[in-house]
């Protein structure tokens, strides 16, 4: 369904993506995994054909360069955060995109229904919560029932509840046979949604693998909250990151994502650095706050 060969994109002298190739059969789901700046978003823009790049990319045998409109007609796109005029009403935005995707009003309503936004048509976009906006983006992406859905970190600006809703919708889409391509830095999402993971590092394909190989445990990640003295938080975060953990600092300590069976590891890391951990808390759900790496 989706083919990329030697996709390379430079911004001036900086190479954002170098020589990325893959093939994704229809009905499969693929994730880009990597830190910020690894080239996930650039790769998605190349696949959509909205930016210039070297190499070949095609969707459903349509080259995104030469038959970009036909290629994009097969794709529903969900951005990191729905960026649209704030004072537009939800219904108007929906009508605009329905018109661009040759979809009649009844199906457009159907899309809204599927994400649970029916009845909010008169609301202006600025009055929507982040989760509602992202659901609207999903509804727009599903207009006309395209076979491919492309998502660029669709949940990174959402809270847990919002994220859950989006992930559930995506799961349904996957089950209904859609081809999914998405960028994420959340292992849990990737494990739930992806068949294949492309690990990007500084624009280069590090490896092509499966979530199972990347995170071998069944339910691999839990978040552990470590309570330290405020002064040592930065140093601790640094040390944990060096040790390969995903860390997030918020007001109430450090949140660290750890494999389920190695919850004590961060404490050991900090001990070796002589940083005192006052208390730890294992959070119930997999919940890695936004912005963490």
């Amino acid at each position, binding site marked *: 369904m989706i083919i990329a060969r030697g996709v390379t994109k430079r911004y001036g002298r900086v190479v954002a993506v170098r020589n990325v190739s893959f093939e994704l059969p229809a009905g499969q789901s693929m994730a880009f995994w990597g830190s910020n700046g690894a080239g996930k978003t650039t790769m998605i823009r190349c696949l959509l054909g909205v930016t210039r790049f070297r190499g070949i990319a095609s969707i459903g045998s349509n080259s995104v360069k030469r038959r970009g409109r036909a290629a994009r007609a097969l794709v529903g796109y969900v*951005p990191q955060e729905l960026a*649209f005029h704030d*004072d537009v009403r939800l219904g108007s935005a929906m009508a*605009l995109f329905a018109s*661009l995707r040759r979809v009649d009003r*009844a199906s457009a309503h159907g899309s809204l*229904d599927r994400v649970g936004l029916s009845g909010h048509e008169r609301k202006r976009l600025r009055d929507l919560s982040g989760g509602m906006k992202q659901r609207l983006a999903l509804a727009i992406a599903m207009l006309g029932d395209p076979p491919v859905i492309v998502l660029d970190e669709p949940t990174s600006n959402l809270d847990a509840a919002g994220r859950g809703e989006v992930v559930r919708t995506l799961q349904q889409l996957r089950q209904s046979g859609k081809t999914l391509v998405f960028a994420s830095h959340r292992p849990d999402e990737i494990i739930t949604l992806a068949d294949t993971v492309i690990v990007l590092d500084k624009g280069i394909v590090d490896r092509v693998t499966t979530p199972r190989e990347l995170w071998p445990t069944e339910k691999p990640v839990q978040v552990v909250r470590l309570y330290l003295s405020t002064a040592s938080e930065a140093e601790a975060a640094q040390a944990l990151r060096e040790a390969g953990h995903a860390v997030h600092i918020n007001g109430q300590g450090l949140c660290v994502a750890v494999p389920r069976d190695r919850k004590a590891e961060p404490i050991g890391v900090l001990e070796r650095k002589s940083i005192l951990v006052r208390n730890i808390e294992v959070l119930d759900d997999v919940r890695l706050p936004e912005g963490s790496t």
Partner: protein
Amino acid sequence: MTMLTMTGPRAATHVPPSHRRAVLTFARREFRDAMSSRWFVLYTVAFTLLAVGVSFLSLSGSGSHGFAGFGRTAAGLLNLVMLVVPLMALTAGAATIAGERERGTLLYLLAQPISRTQLLLGKYAGLSLALVCSLCIGFGLSAGVLAWRAGGVGVGSYMVLVGLTAMLAIAMLSVGVLISVVSRRTSVATGLALFVWLVLVFVSDLGLMASSIVFQLRVQEIFALAAVNPLQCYKMGAIVHLNASLDVLGPVGAYASYTLGPAMPWVLSGSIVAWIVMPLLLALVLFNRRRSI
């Protein structure tokens, strides 16, 4: 909900919208955005008030005599148009693409099954229509005042004036859109638009005046240089129609009407049409080539 289940999801076609449909969709959206934009409404109100004011004030002295002629009324309207209309069109054009780019909506729109050409042409068409509407409101109310006071210029001439003004507005819109395409940020685009406005309205005329004195330019040189400026062409065209003679413009005007004769209106409107077509084509080429989002 019942409606939805009964209708069911439509069979997906996954065909990009026709060129006309995409352009019309964007045109309609742009028109509506312009009409609900604070700046646009402000410009329209200002233009209308000034136009009505000029007609009212300059007729109040002569209304009792009931003579028609090209006096300061028409001159005042011309001056007003030459100041306000390019400003309005340039800034409206400059904001259009740069604004979408800055808000991040450009990427979102381009991820739909449409081409850059469709997007630009649609926005251009919508803004043109909005500008023409705004002019019609101003000129319409002004005509109302003229009708009430029974004087001023003839109906035919007035319609020609409205038509010429619409052409000028669309030409300035082309320039504005070109500015917008090459600008990353709205503030830069607006600044450039204001600069171009200053150049076209004041600097080029004053510069041409100075050089005609310093270099003692011949009349044909002065005319040729002046005819490059769409505002001068607009002014000369308006005077030809309102006055049926260019001797108002001294030796240069006499030279022009002597050498060009009946071709005069065509040459002048041709220059304005060139200002409509050339910047728009250049904008399309650059927008498609640079591929920045």
